[in-house]
């Protein structure tokens, strides 16, 4: 409905109800509903601000005791055992290792299935497959964590006997699989949104199907596809259960995926579950690392929004 036609409709409704006191009553009822809706919509906003406030005020308290440079640049993470050390790089590198390795799986598989779904699958197959993929996206991550531990890790260790029982690779594979549905689904949306008139134009110029897909459809959808990758990265950075179960709890500054590592999220779980005294420095580390995580995923999400906005016109 356009702005104008809505205005006309509202004034028509108003005319009908203008008789007697019905009009005033109706106005009062609408303003009550309006106030209620505003109140309800404030809840998520206030909650978000509350979380951000707690996160950053506690993180600030942490940085009063540990210089921020030491935190960001330090290469040893040992917040509980003396001598203590608060270099977050091992956790950060652990997170990035899992994320990057996971994306190596999620990007090709996710984009491949998106292209298959949107360009090759028959309309009937698509009607079945798309919801199936979306169900896959709903599998609890703890299931993926067990999958990694009980299924992927044994395979890895049979190929690389030197691999640790908890290792980054196993978690990364599970994280990658977990993200595939998300990338497939979002990329498929982007591909399906490419106007068919562009496909037609390309066919009419004598392009074959492969050329139409690789040179017209995918490039035109590239901003939506890139956004799905970035959101996938954001998911991987924040993923907690899989890495807690499968990647280990050793803050190891390494790029070797066969070693046991610890990610930022897994560390937060470890401290949250332990009996760290409330208000202690160790307790405050989870806010510092949490704030770091928040900033990272926030940047990723902003990037995704930027990508879709900047080039998302056909």
């Amino acid at each position: 409905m356009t702005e104008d036609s809505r205005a006309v409709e509202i004034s028509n409704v108003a005319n009908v109800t203008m008789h007697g006191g019905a009009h005033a009553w109706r106005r009062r009822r609408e303003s009550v509903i309006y106030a209620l809706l505003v109140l309800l919509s404030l809840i998520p906003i206030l909650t978000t601000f509350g979380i951000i406030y707690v996160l950053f005020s506690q993180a600030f308290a942490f940085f009063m005791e540990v210089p921020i440079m030491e935190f960001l640049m330090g290469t040893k993470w040992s917040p509980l055992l003396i001598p203590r050390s608060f270099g977050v790089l091992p956790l950060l590198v652990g997170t990035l290792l899992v994320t990057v390795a996971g994306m190596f799986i999620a990007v090709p598989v996710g984009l491949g299935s998106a292209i298959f779904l949107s360009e090759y699958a028959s309309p009937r197959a698509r009607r079945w497959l798309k919801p199936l993929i979306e169900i896959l996206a709903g599998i609890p991550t703890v299931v993926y964590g067990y999958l990694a531990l009980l299924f992927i890790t044994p395979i890895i260790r049979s190929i690389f006997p030197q691999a640790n029982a908890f290792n980054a690779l196993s978690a990364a594979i599970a994280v990658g699989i977990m993200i595939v549905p998300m990338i497939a689904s979002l990329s498929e949306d982007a591909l399906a949104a490419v106007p068919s008139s562009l496909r037609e134009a390309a066919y009419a110029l004598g392009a074959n199907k492969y050329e139409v897909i690789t040179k017209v459809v995918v490039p035109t959808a590239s901003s939506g596809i890139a956004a799905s990758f970035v959101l996938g990265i954001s998911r991987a950075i924040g993923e907690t259960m899989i890495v807690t179960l499968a990647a280990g709890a050793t803050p190891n500054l390494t790029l070797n995926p066969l070693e046991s590592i610890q990610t930022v999220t897994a560390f937060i779980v470890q401290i949250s579950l332990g009996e760290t005294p409330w208000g202690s420095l160790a307790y405050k580390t989870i806010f510092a690392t949490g704030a770091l995580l928040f900033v990272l995923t926030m940047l990723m999400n902003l990037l995704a929004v930027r990508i879709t906005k900047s080039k998302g016109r056909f």
Partner: protein
Amino acid sequence: MTARVKIDDLCAWFGDQQVLYDISTSIKDRAVTAIIGPSGCGKSTFIRCLNRMHETIPNAHRTGQVLIDNADIYDHTVDPVTIRQRIGMVFQKPNPFPRMSIYDNVVAGFRLNGTARRVNLDQIVEESLRQAALWEQVKDRLKEPGASLSGGQQQRLCIARALAIKPEVLLMDEPCSALDPAATHRIEDLIHKLKKNYAIVVVTHNMQQAARISGDTGFFLDGTLVEFGRTKGIFTNPKDKRTEDYITGRFG
């Protein structure tokens, strides 16, 4: 004038819905043939059967023959890609590739099938844009995106793009329906010039346009070709009552 394209007993379907019934006619070389008829009568389907675009739609098929220079374009040895290169198409809504520059849009046909290295792109760009009467307006901004042009310019860009791959026949599906009168006039001028070198088929809803630009006219109704002949004859002395009703606006 010689016949360039011959159509023999052409039938077309979407799924099991038949939309064209036994169409037989011929398209002359170096002339404009107009296709008229009410909405949904099968005009677009007809011209899309002439360059094998119909089959790109899932579940669409056809029977019958389309001969270009006496060779059936539906012969099983023929690659639809080569047919679409020989028989160019311009669509109702201008559809330049939005991510490509004006330059790249013109040579998109070569870029898409990887033959760009074998030809002199600069020369093709200038030649095609001149043919489409767009060169003077865009020659200093060839690197700008195709989407930055006005609607009428975009349509001429699409015509240039179709001409760049040197087709023998040009199919135009309501090329002016998204344009204002001035832009329409320019496209009509252009069609007039192009007919010196090509066989052109134009679908139009505009009777005056059909009368102005075409030598032959075919009137379609409900998937059948009701009447086909010299445009002058169709418009001044139609043989079929339904044709007369349609062109005088008494239809429906």
